[in-house]
């Protein structure tokens, strides 16, 4: 479970750590493990080699030692070469001192010529105890060897078989001048002919022959020692150890072969060879570090090179990964920006690899999207323009007909002056409506157009119609969309005169502050005292005003037409409101933003193509 959750976590990691982990898993760790295995195998093969080789060397050395010891063991037999000496040894009683001293002279002389001056240079001294007599010959002066029983370990009258025994260093008090290390060979001499004990011979044999054997063995720095089966050290490359008991040897797992200590501090290779004959063990102990000294250098260099390589390759790898992941990061950021509607982004690319291709594709994709949006937008704007144009262009043919009929009637009555006035007014109105290139016009122009219209209607309906226009701001300064007042006034006249005798229309224009944002806006109020709108119709109208202005409407409703145009041009904050009471009258309020002549002039300079910008800037 743990592993799975870890893996899942791993899946969610960023690309950079992921790639670095995979890189380490695939290269650094296997390399390190491989290196470790190779090194430890190599070390253990060195160990094994040394472990197999050293016991063989030890065996050879041990054989040399054996040869020497065997030679040593033959030394006592030299006594039998002299019948005279054997004869002396057979003596038990002496009548005179001179006879005793003469015999001592004979034997000492023999020992001296045979063992000290003539024979083996390693012999330090020879002692012969026979029937309470001590004969001796030594090459160095000595102390600690007396005829009394205390001076040697087994006493004088020990029972001893034929075979010789070796007294190891420090088991006896005998010491030679200069304190050379020696072993003492002790052997009972038997009178083979009479089958009696002749005495006991002790030969002190210097151990420096071991020194040369050890030196030959000890090419490495290590300890070499020879010990007996009780672990008593017979000889040691460190002379201070001679004669001590080697306690550790009790724990040794084998007596022939090699083994390694598993102690962290003292990692030693110990090789042993034990002789079946004597039970002596020749041992060598080497620090493994001595063996692996040369390899350690190689190992350290390899480790350093490995670390440098890992660092370099990791560095390169990080750069590479960074090169891959950082454009992706930037891409993600830019995508978020695009998400919020900002298409003005550009991902800079340098490389031509997959990441570069991705950036190029992204850029081209964003540009394409931008273009598509632009195209769609233009189409929509054009459609709107066309629509607006159509709406603006609507001049009521009814009005034309009635006006022309009135003009005809006036001319028939021969009131030429009124006829001319009416034709002039109509002409002005027509010209105003034809010149609809400008969608926004100054309030003054719109108001004068209304005045013209109302004047014409006044001429037609005479006293049934009265009107008043109140301008509470500089009508030259502010601009409004064309034809927004006329359809409302038209409505008032149409419905008012249908049902009642006389009607008064009031048009008020003023500047107010918006209660919502505190900004200024223009309010147009068209008031009449007509019959009002019945409740059913009022509800229908109000519903129509709230609905989406872009949906095609029944053009016959002038009110809705005007409202739609304002909403489309300035946004839904602006528009038209109706309040009406039956038989009391109707009030229509139109709110539009304050558009000064400066603003219109600056917009005009930008030209036709920036129409959409006008709209958006107005709406702000």
């Amino acid at each position: 479970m743990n592993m799975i959750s870890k893996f899942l976590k791993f899946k969610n990691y960023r690309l950079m750590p992921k790639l670095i982990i995979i890189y380490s898993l695939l290269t650094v760790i296997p390399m390190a493990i491989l290196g470790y295995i190779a090194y430890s195998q190599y070390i253990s093969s060195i160990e094994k080699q040394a472990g197999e080789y050293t016991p063989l060397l030890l065996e050879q050395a041990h054989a040399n030692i054996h040869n020497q010891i065997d030679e040593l063991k033959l030394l006592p037999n030299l006594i039998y070469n002299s019948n005279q000496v054997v004869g002396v040894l057979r003596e038990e009683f002496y009548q005179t001192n001179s006879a005793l001293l003469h015999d001592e002279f004979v034997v000492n002389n023999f020992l001296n010529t045979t063992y000290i001056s003539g024979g083996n240079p390693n012999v330090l001294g020879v002692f012969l105890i026979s029937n309470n007599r001590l004969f001796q010959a030594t090459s160095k002066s000595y102390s600690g060897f007396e005829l009394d029983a205390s001076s040697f370990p087994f006493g004088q009258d020990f029972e001893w078989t034929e075979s010789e025994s070796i007294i190891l260093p420090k088991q006896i008090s005998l010491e030679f001048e200069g304190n050379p290390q020696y072993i003492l060979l002790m052997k009972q001499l038997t009178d083979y002919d009479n089958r009696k004990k002749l005495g006991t011979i002790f030969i002190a044999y210097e151990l420096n022959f071991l020194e040369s054997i050890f030196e030959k063995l000890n090419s490495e720095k290590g300890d070499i020692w020879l010990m007996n089966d009780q672990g008593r050290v017979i000889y040691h490359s460190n002379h201070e150890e001679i004669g001590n008991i080697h306690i550790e040897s009790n724990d040794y797992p084998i007596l022939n072969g090699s083994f390694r200590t598993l102690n962290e501090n003292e990692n030693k290779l110990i090789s042993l060879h034990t002789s079946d004959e004597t039970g002596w063990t020749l041992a060598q102990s080497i620090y493994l570090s001595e063996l692996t000294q040369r390899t350690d250098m190689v190992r350290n260099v390899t480790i350093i090179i490995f670390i440098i390589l890992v660092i370099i390759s990791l560095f390169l790898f990080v750069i590479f990964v960074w090169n891959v992941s950082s454009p992706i990061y930037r891409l993600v950021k830019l995508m978020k920006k695009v998400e919020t509607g900002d298409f003005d982004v550009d991902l800079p690319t340098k490389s031509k690899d997959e990441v570069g291709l991705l950036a190029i594709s992204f850029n081209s994709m964003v540009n394409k999207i931008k273009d598509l949006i632009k195209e769609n937008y233009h189409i929509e704007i054009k459609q709107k323009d066309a629509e607006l144009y159509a709406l603006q262009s609507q001049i009521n043919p009814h009005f034309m007909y009635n006006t022309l009929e009135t003009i005809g009637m006036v001319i028939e009555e021969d009131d030429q002056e009124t006829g001319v006035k009416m034709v002039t007014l109509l002409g002005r109105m027509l010209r105003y409506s034809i010149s609809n290139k400008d969608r926004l016009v100054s309030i003054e122009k719109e108001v004068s157009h209304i005045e013209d219209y109302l004047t014409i209607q006044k001429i037609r309906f005479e006293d049934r119609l009265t009107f008043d226009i109140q301008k509470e701001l500089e009508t030259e300064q502010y601009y409004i969309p064309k034809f927004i007042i006329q359809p409302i006034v038209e409505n008032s006249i149409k419905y008012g005169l249908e049902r009642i005798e006389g009607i008064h229309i009031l048009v008020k224009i003023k500047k107010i502050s918006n209660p919502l944002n505190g900004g200024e806006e223009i309010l147009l109020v068209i008031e009449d005292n007509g019959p009002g709108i019945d409740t059913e119709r009022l509800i229908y109208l109000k519903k129509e005003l709230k609905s989406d202005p872009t949906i095609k409407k029944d053009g016959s409703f002038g009110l809705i037409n005007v409202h739609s145009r304002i909403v489309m041009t300035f946004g839904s904050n602006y528009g038209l409101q109706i309040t009406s009471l039956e038989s009391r009258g109707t009030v229509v309020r139109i709110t539009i933003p304050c558009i000064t002549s400066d603003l219109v002039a600056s917009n005009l300079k930008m030209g036709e193509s920036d129409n959409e910008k006008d709209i958006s800037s107005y709406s702000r």
Partner: protein
Amino acid sequence: MRDCRISLIIFALLIVTACNDSEETKYKVIYSGESESEEQMDTPVEVKNSITKPATVAIVPKVVNIPYFNAVEKGAMEASKEFGVNVIYAGPNIADSKQQINIIEELIEENIDVLAVSANDPEELLPILNKAQRSGIRVITWDADTETEGREFFINMVHPETLGRHLMDTLAKHTNEKGDYAILTGALSAANLNEWMHWMMAQQEEYYPDLNLIEVIPTDEDPNKAYTSTLELLEKYPNIKGIIGNVSVAPPAASQAVTDTGKIGEVIVVGLSSPSQMREYLNSGAAQVVTLWSPKRLGYLTVALAKNLVEGIKPYDKQYIQGVGPISVMDDEVIMGDPIDFYIGNVDEYDF
């Protein structure tokens, strides 16, 4: 961070396994030479098993109750104690091969491992020795040999040539290399005695032309017969200058006869005999020098070699035998050592 943790886990695992190792044992054996030595140890164990029942060695001398063979018996018994082998010592009352055959016949029935014989006759004993071999007994000879097919090896005390020539030298030295002499031997059929005599005569012909052998008299190792033979000899040849006793009973008998006839100093007595038998005559001057080896040592050696034979060790040249010293071996003949001369100065050192 992540890979850090992974590597830490790996390290931890390595350390843990390493720790486990060190807990199990203090040492790790790399190479063991033990197996070889174990094999070597096996063989002695088997040998020990086979000799848990101590080996039985039968020693058959030419004759019993003469000092020489008594000394052999002492040596053999000492070795028996030393090596832990059973020793049966049995021989005829007179040096006769027929009686020896009867004794061997009885010994074959006694479940012995080794039969060591000092043969009175090299040929007559062959059938019975072969019979013993067929019943699984290892046969060796000592002191006096048989034909080679009758035994595995022969333990000789001294080299026959050395001994024979040396005996002649001692006689020549004391007779000033001239005059008549006679030899008293044991049984005329005894191989070793005849061989010694052969070398005595060879030495005399080679170096001592003035010496003259007048008679060889068999004594059958009987002291009485030797004594009477000497008396007859002295009577028969008044000018005789020397007597060589070729067998251990002869020199004492001859010395006694010389003493009894008042011819001390006139007739030189040399030969093979033990110090204890000759001490009196050497001191009185009736005998000048006798030569021998230690019969105790011979008995001891015989038992030692018999025991080795049971354990599968055949004697080899320069082998060091515990309690005896080095031996030399020529073909199938073991030679114990060199002869010892006993004279008035050293005869008291020896107790056989």
